[in-house]
């Protein structure tokens, strides 16, 4: 198809503002899928996405729309909406000329909306504001338009108004996409350049590469050179997502589709890489993506130490479709061999863990997440540490720096007081506040990232009745009075539970951690002491008394089966356990240094 009849766009929005629903409706309105085949959130292929109701992986789909008698190819790239997935959003943006900025008509502009809109503006895309859920009783499209103008500075006077749920306004929106979003500019006979913006692994087909043709034309049976990894693969199959994979044989400039070559080497495909013709004219690599910033690190250990290799394979496969996390082998005295993984944020970490367990049937123990610290050594050099265990003794370094985040929080004005309180509790420094509309406020704080990942998200949600949203950018590393908090079980230090905390908080955090552990560890045949220590000083202790009585009084012929089942159920929880010293410690206890649920 001629590039002037192609439009490539994505939808950016805050979580729950109806992005996936709008994508579904577009598929339906353009006749790409039968109404009766319609599953909610058709584009989200992973079970996990559907269960959590959020999109975690950009997906692409081609639909056809007839505008003024001409057929147009619209390539829609669905993007994730959560703060953790900025990197995925960026990849999607690179493959587009335009973006729909979708805002819920009753929720208004939220932190993530702003963050993603800025990304789109930065990427030089044409941004079309779309107000969703306009048919709901609490819809205030005018107020929302005002908020968009005040916060992002995009003219919203003629914003599209739709109901993604009912389909109201969707045909008009499709027309508008054709009218407003620029056509791709590549030429069909220019030297080939394709951008890899995503990839998934399929057991039978190998790696399925999601790509956008920028210049030139790609045909099946051509030898294709991946410039970044310097690998050559034949284009065995080329096609589009309609949404099911449909073979096309040839893809021209502006086309968005897939490339299959039975690639089994996971390292050969890199998101952001440029594909060109092997032995064709030399081309310049397309601008690479900003590398993902790993601000949160956690260690994964196989529950069963024999599963180490399976875990490595699982991580490698997963990193293919999610290039935004990193992993490297580590050893823990307590937990054996495992991997230290870097994530974009907390939700990202949870999703990776769940996908490993679900898609690769791995049973893992995960340690509490930690941030990256920098230490200035006596000789003035800086070194990074990604795990609290790496922190040397205080006499071996000059100072320790921790990452701070510039946090933007959007809340209804009535919650300002609550937000100020939790910011203060998390060592936050007030920067400024801005009124977006008479009832909504944006607050800016500088908060240590460690505090953000400890329990700031949870506390913000609960203290603003779910209305508070936030986005953050890492601003700088600042010196801080930090100490190493160690946890000991019967005198054995559990390296996986070591954390770095502010001096003032050490006692409180230590006490809270061992209280949680006390609840998670079952009684044993002997007494168990759980201690929290800073340096050589024990700052808190909990004791789990020895199990002395555990016996059923009655066990006759009618009781045996039921009794056995009850006992089996009690042992079922054994799976995610690790033995340290001779104490069985369940997975949950390894998360005790995480925040949340403080009871006293």
């Amino acid at each position, binding site marked *: 198809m001629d590039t002037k009849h192609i439009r490539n766009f994505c939808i950016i929005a805050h979580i729950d503002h109806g992005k996936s629903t709008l994508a579904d409706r577009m598929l339906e309105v353009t006749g790409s899928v039968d109404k009766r085949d319609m599953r909610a959130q058709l584009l989200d292929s992973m079970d996990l996405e559907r269960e959590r109701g959020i999109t975690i992986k950009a997906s692409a789909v081609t639909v056809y729309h007839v505008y003024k008698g001409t057929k147009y190819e619209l390539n829609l790239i669905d993007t994730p909406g959560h703060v953790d997935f900025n990197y995925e959003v960026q990849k999607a943006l690179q493959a587009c000329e335009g973006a729909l900025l979708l805002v819920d008509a009753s929720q208004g502009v939220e932190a993530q909306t702003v963050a993603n809109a800025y990304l789109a503006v930065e990427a030089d895309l044409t941004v079309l504001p779309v107000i969703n859920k306009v048919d709901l009783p609490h819809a205030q499209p005018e107020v929302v338009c005002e908020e968009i103008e005040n916060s992002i500075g995009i003219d919203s006077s003629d914003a599209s108004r739709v109901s993604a749920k009912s389909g109201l306004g969707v045909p008009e929106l499709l027309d508008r996409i054709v009218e407003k979003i620029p056509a791709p500019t590549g030429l069909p006979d220019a030297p080939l350049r394709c951008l890899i913006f995503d990839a998934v692994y399929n057991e039978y087909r190998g790696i399925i590469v999601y790509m956008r043709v920028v210049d030139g034309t790609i045909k099946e049976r051509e030898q294709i050179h991946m410039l970044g990894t310097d690998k050559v693969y034949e284009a065995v199959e080329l096609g589009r997502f309609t949404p099911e994979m449909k073979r096309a044989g040839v893809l021209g400039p502006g086309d968005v589709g897939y490339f299959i070559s039975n690639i089994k080497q996971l390292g050969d495909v890199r998101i952001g890489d440029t594909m060109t013709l092997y032995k064709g004219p030399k081309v310049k690599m397309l601008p690479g993506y900003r590398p993902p910033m790993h601000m949160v690190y956690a260690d994964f250990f196989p529950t069963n130490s024999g599963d180490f290799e399976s875990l490595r394979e699982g991580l490698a496969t997963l990193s293919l479709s999610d290039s935004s996390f990193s992993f490297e082998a580590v050893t823990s005295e307590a937990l054996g061999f495992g991997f230290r993984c870097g994530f974009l944020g907390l939700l990202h970490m949870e999703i990776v863990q769940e996908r490993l367990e679900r898609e690769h049937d791995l049973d893992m123990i995960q340690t509490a997440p930690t941030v990256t610290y920098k230490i200035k050594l006596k000789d003035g050099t800086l070194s990074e540490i990604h795990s609290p265990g790496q922190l040397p003794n205080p006499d071996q370094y000059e100072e320790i720096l921790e990452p701070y985040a510039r946090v933007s929080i959007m809340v209804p004005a009535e919650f300002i007081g609550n937000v100020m309180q939790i910011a203060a509790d998390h060592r936050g420094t007030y920067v400024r506040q801005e009124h977006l509309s008479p009832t909504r406020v944006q607050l800016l704080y500088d908060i240590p990232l460690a505090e953000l990942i400890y329990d700031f998200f949870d506390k913000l949600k609960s203290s603003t009745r779910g209305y508070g949203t936030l986005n953050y950018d890492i601003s700088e590393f600042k010196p801080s009075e930090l100490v190493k908090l160690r946890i000991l079980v019967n005198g054995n230090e559990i390296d996986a539970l070591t954390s770095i905390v502010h001096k003032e908080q050490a006692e409180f955090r230590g006490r809270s951690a061992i209280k949680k552990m006390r609840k998670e560890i079952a009684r044993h045949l002997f007494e168990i002491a759980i201690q929290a220590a800073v340096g050589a000083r024990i700052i808190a202790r909990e004791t789990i008394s020895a199990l002395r009585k555990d016996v059923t009084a009655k066990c006759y012929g009618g009781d*045996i089966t039921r009794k056995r089942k009850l006992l089996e159920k009690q042992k079922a929880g054994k799976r995610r356990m690790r033995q340290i010293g001779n104490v069985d410690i369940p997975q949950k206890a390894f998360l005790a240094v995480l925040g949340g649920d403080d009871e006293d």
Partner: protein
Amino acid sequence: MSATQKPRAAPEAPPTAPRERAPTGTPLYVHLPFCAAKCHYCDFFSVPDKGQDRAANLNAIQREAELYAPRNPRTVFIGGGTPSLLSIAELTEFLDNLERITSFRSSAVEVTAECNPESLDRDKARALLDLGVTRLSIGFQSLHDEVLQLFGRVHSVEQSFAAFESARSAGVTDLNIDLIYAIPGQTPEAWEQDLGRVLALGAEHLSAYNLTFEEETVFHRWLSQGRLAKSPEEVELAHFEVTRRLTQAAGLEAYEISNFARTNRHCRHNVNYWHNGTYLGIGPSAVSKVGATRGGNLKAILPYNRRIEASGDARTWEETPSATERLFETWWLGLRLAEGISASEARERADFSASEDPALAITAGLVADGLIEETDARFRLTARGLPLADYVARRFLAAAP
């Protein structure tokens, strides 16, 4: 491999496998479900007697006996429910029919009937003896009227003692008394006094149970509502130790965790359960083990009657544990007994034939932990392991495939 438990077919459908009468000599359990009132701690299948058609149920149980009960059972246990609730006429008809079907009167070395004080007098005890019963088990449960009320029982302490005397004067020479301890608020000292009074009666057998808050009982609900509190572990342990000390002083052997008997007065029928032996149960809710398969009947009177009438089969579940599962089950059941268990006995009882015995690694670990000890190739729970018998069982179950 795990035990397969499958729901049985609907009433009109034939049973999944044709069942026959249990092999000659198999121990027989009879469940008579009616009680004067439902006790608040009791999770056995029992139904308060409110003028239901007891005859129809007795007929159905009798029909089930005709179909499956073994000839010449070695032991018979008539439980419930409260068998003594039945009139002498009902008991006569039922037990005469059971005799016609099984000839238990000449074959059984022990025939126990469970009785409650409010329905046991001299005449009934005499009649039970005449009908072939050799042993009575009387539910005292507590020596305090206010506790009996809390339990929801319908007799007084005085009636308990009277029932015991009636049984003795009727000529019953094999008597068991049931008691419950670690009742909320009870102290080990108070228990020691009560137990002393009961032991002074000179019963041949005593069953003393730590109070358990079983699911789906009134007590369980009261516990979760905070109306009752479970005794602290150390208090329960003190009760447990008082029980063992006093029974020993009275010349009773602590032959099982909750059971105490004079020489040769163990309940043979129950010992068979702990040997993981076979048995045939009839009546609503009754469980049988024939070969390696266990199965249980419906827990409802009218549906039970209807199913027996329609197809002769009232089973609602069946399971056949694997050889290893049987072996481990045999171990943890056998360890409840003071006589203990040997590895070869366990393999024989479980019909376990593989050359490698997976229990040995587990027993070695338990010996190392001081929970069991080995003397002359027999393993027994130690003083420490005794109150941890369920923990020991879990060690076996955790190793099951």
